[in-house]
């Protein structure tokens, strides 16, 4: 059985999921190799050739209000979405997992304190918190990632705490403890591996959420920078030209939609493949 066949079986033999995976890989490849793939410099202006519609000569997807090539900007824009998406999710997962493990395993007042903090965190619409944090920290790629990590870790903390609470009473953990293993080793070697599946499912779905949030921030004028092309920023610029150039707002949004759709399809498939109790994960995820 080839690798692709195995993957196909793993994802419940769903063509839909394989397409989603292919789309995601395509986006990553495009982002990584942007300088070689993009037909022109994304910031090269051509005021004589402003607002050219798609399929014009030399500009497959047209040009924007400064005559910049839309396709090239879309290609470069994928970098910001992917960098922010993956780094913010990875960092939040690491922080959340540590907090969740400690909270669930140590228990007592540490658990109460940490969970009250989590509750206060969940009391904010996360987009609002992200906006507020970027507003005070200032714009920039690093600040956006910081804001997304500050808003994102709680999800993992809650999930891992719940899993840890039930795992710590299981025989293999009790026997490790009885044999005198140190708590850090128990948490990392015995408990963590057993909650990796739900963490991966949540993390995958979160990539989509984070990409949309980054785009929302850019759309609201709180993006990475004005000079670097980002999908959210392109969309915001395109709004001013809705009546004259429909493609400017349509295409970047379509890109966000397609990548988020692919991530969501993949996340659902992962859940079905890895976690037969997926209803449980879903309710634990819900910040009530």
């Amino acid at each position, binding site marked *: 059985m080839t690798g692709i066949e195995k993957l196909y079986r793993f994802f419940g033999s769903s063509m839909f999921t394989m397409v989603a995976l292919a789309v995601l890989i395509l986006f990553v490849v495009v982002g990584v190799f942007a300088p070689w793939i993009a037909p022109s410099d994304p910031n090269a202006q051509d005021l004589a050739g402003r607002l050219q519609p798609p399929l014009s000569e030399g500009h497959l997807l047209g040009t924007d209000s400064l005559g910049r090539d839309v396709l090239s900007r879309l290609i470069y824009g994928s970098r910001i979405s992917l960098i922010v998406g993956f780094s913010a999710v990875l960092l939040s997962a690491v922080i959340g997992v540590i907090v969740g493990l400690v909270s669930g395993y140590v228990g007592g007042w540490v658990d109460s304190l940490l969970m009250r903090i989590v*509750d206060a965190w969940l*009391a904010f619409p996360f*987009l*609002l918190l992200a906006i507020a944090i970027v507003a005070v920290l200032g714009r920039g790629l690093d600040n956006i990632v910081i804001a997304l990590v500050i808003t994102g870790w709680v999800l993992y903390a809650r999930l891992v705490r719940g899993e840890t609470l039930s795992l710590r009473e299981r025989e293999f953990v009790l026997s490790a403890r009885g044999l005198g293993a140190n708590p850090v080793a128990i948490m990392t070697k015995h408990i963590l591996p057993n909650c990796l599946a739900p963490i991966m499912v949540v993390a995958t779905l979160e990539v989509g959420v984070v990409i949309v949030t980054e785009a*929302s921030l850019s759309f609201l004028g709180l993006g990475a920078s004005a000079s670097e092309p980002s999908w959210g920023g392109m*969309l915001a610029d395109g709004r001013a030209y809705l009546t004259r150039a429909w493609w400017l707002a349509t295409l970047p949004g379509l890109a966000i*939609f397609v990548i988020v759709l692919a991530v969501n399809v993949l996340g659902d498939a992962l859940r079905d493949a890895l976690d037969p109790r997926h209803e449980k994960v879903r309710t634990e995820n819900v910040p009530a």
Partner: protein
Amino acid sequence: MLAFIVRRLWQTVLVLFGVSIIVFSLIHITPGDAVDVMFAGENVSAEQREVYRQQLGLDQPLVQQYFSYMFGVVQGDLGTSVRRGTSVSGIIASTVPATVELTLAALIVAIVIAIPVAVVSALRQGSVWDRGGSVLALFGISMPSFWLGIMLILIFSVGLQWFPASGRLAAGSGMTQITGFVVVDAVLQGNWAAARSGLLHIALPAITLGTAITATLSRVLRSGLLEVKGQDYVDALRARGLRFATVLRHMLRNALPATIIVMGVRIGSLLGGAIVVEVVFGWPGLGRLVVDAIQNRDFPLVQGAVLVLAFLFVLVNLVTDIVQAWLDPRIKLTGGGSR
């Protein structure tokens, strides 16, 4: 029930305390001096900046700052906007009805669409309708609301010109404010032209904001219905030859508690989503106020608006938990809602 409510209220107080600390800290995590950041690159003298610092209490010790801020908050005083020079609570109060109106309208859109979709999907499980419903739900969840909003504007405002692209009401409708909800006020005053204008204005924003929640709601209600579908009491009702509508009513009632939990959570996220949708449609609500305040670097206004939004969010969660406990008595015994 009372014990449950008391315990839940206490939790809410704790959460609000945490919220107030987070909001209060916002102004202090600014790199550098908050007043200098607010007026960066502007022609404001050093003396003037010092006055602002005193006004914001930034010259006092941190703990004292927090308590004097909270002392004001409890009395409804959220400080003074540095840009507009008027009270923050007054500015916020004038925008809250617009946001609440939009959120409720989005909820209505979601309920009206999701219930029939869920019923058809659940009763015809595995059919083309059911699979179509799943795909649509996936699309609805994946679609960024600002893009959906702009696409709706492009098609229905710019192209077909059926709906206005922004605002709450056509100018010169001759309305006086009673409740702050445009459509309700218009109906109360018998101003049908204004009511129609209000409805036309709210249609696209409500659909935009409601789409994601429609998708979630229809999926959750569908799985709830599937769970009760095979149960004995449903068969019993059917066997007694009751009308389909009656059986369905019983099924819906039992599928509802799980749905309401998710709804409560999603109403909260609607408040967050409203920020973006309000900006897209120029809707004069709390969300757009936050974004404007951030762009003007009006920190007291940002703080106040964030606090009020978070407060609304916590309140919605509280009400959801209580309604849920009321619908499902088992929760009261096991305690603590979904937490």
